């Protein structure tokens, strides 16, 4: 039986891991390669890097980080953030990333999903969707949640699947950084409408939130940042609580 995946996410700015609360205030944490290797050793099933560097130099640094990670980390890892074109995808995949996550660039140019899937295979293409609740449902938002695209998040997830996305990384902008648990209704709404794996993201503040999202929805993976980075809980503790609750996980 396939195991539910637990994925630490590292937000990287100019070569350093940071984590924002509600995507605004940033605190510095540490060396991305060392952190990824430590997580991999302690049982993380995958690693996600989100590059939030705004500068060209920051992006170039990310490529070095990817190269180093490929040498030191023996679980799959995804790079997102600065991936805006087929060239960016090629660069990151050649540097050693297993998958790339595309977000606003896919919203601006949906054909990018198709092109990426055709060139590298669906398994390499993760479409990241930032969703926020509005009166008429969930909208896709971009620019760290500041811009409402007006696009229905469920419809967009279906389109991403139809265009060849291999997975969807679904972040609730309402729950992100608040640590009160994953947005179960959003997660359920998307999981029920698509037939590719979904990674739930945003809102995790404790191991119970992870067991909850696996018990209440059919999501394939749960992503978290601050509970691991702050050393509030370790990956082992999260996996233990999953096992106690009967959630099938990989024993490291």
């Amino acid at each position, binding site marked *: 039986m396939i195991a539910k995946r637990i994925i630490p996410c590292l937000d990287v700015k100019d070569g350093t891991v940071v984590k924002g609360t509600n995507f605004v205030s940033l605190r510095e944490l540490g060396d991305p390669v060392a952190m990824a290797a430590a997580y991999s*050793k302690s049982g993380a099933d995958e690693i996600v890097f989100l590059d939030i560097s705004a500068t060209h130099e920051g992006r170039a640094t990310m490529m070095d980080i990817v190269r180093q990670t490929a040498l030191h980390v*023996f679980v799959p890892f995804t790079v997102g953030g600065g991936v805006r074109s087929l060239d960016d995808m090629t660069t990151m995949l050649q540097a050693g990333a297993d998958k790339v996550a595309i977000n606003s660039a896919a919203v601006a140019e949906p054909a990018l999903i198709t092109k990426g899937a055709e060139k590298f*295979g669906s398994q390499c293409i993760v479409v990241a969707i930032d969703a926020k609740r509005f009166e008429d449902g969930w909208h896709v938002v971009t620019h760290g949640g500041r811009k409402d695209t007006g696009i229905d998040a469920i419809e967009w997830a279906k389109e991403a699947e139809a265009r060849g996305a291999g997975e969807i990384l679904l972040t609730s902008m309402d729950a992100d950084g608040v640590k009160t648990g994953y947005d179960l209704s959003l997660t359920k709404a998307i999981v029920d409408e698509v037939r590719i794996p979904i990674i739930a993201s945003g809102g995790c503040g404790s191991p119970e939130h992870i067991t909850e999202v696996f018990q209440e929805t059919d999501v394939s993976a749960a992503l978290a940042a601050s509970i691991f980075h702050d050393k509030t809980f370790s990956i082992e503790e999260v996996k233990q609580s999953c096992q106690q609750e009967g959630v099938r996980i990989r024993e490291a």
Partner: protein
Amino acid sequence: MIAIVDYGVGNVASVANACKQLRYETILTDKKEEFEQATHIILPGVGSFRAAMEEIERRNLRGLLLELAAQKPFIGICVGMQLLFEKGFEHGETEGLGLIPGTVDKIETTHLLPHIGWNSLEVSDSFPTYKKHDGKHVYFVHSYQANTPEEYIVASTEYGTQIPAIVQNGTICGIQFHPEKSEKVGQFLLQSVFESSQQAFSKEESI
């Protein structure tokens, strides 16, 4: 030394690195003289069966690969494993290397595709040297699977259907998952595959 077949299939650094962790030296090559120095050949692969096979044909490597497969332990990983079979049906019918009987077809399951994530191994009783890996989780990512007679299936995994995870035909081995992305478990498995194919090879030589 282990020779990894260079036919332009993306990143093989992590495969080389996993070998290095096991203290094997590696070389990435498409040259006959360099293959001849190697103890084992690894055929990597990503993308589709058809694209990978076309690249092998385009570089005129088919003959050389078949020659090497007769001379040394030969290990296919992921799409490289799929290419060991007779035919693949991803993006149309394509002829494979035909080193293990069987075909590669779309996975028929009610579960989500691609099959992405850590799934557990069920090791066949016919392959006792692999028994220590029974129940271990390894990382899969694929939508197509091998369909081959049971005698070649070393280990399988359950995903709404049984999927061959490790296959072996004497000195020819195939690994459907990514040992290089499966942490320590993956490295131990790679070690078993190197040893098992080597043993099969020594046995053949002594006959």
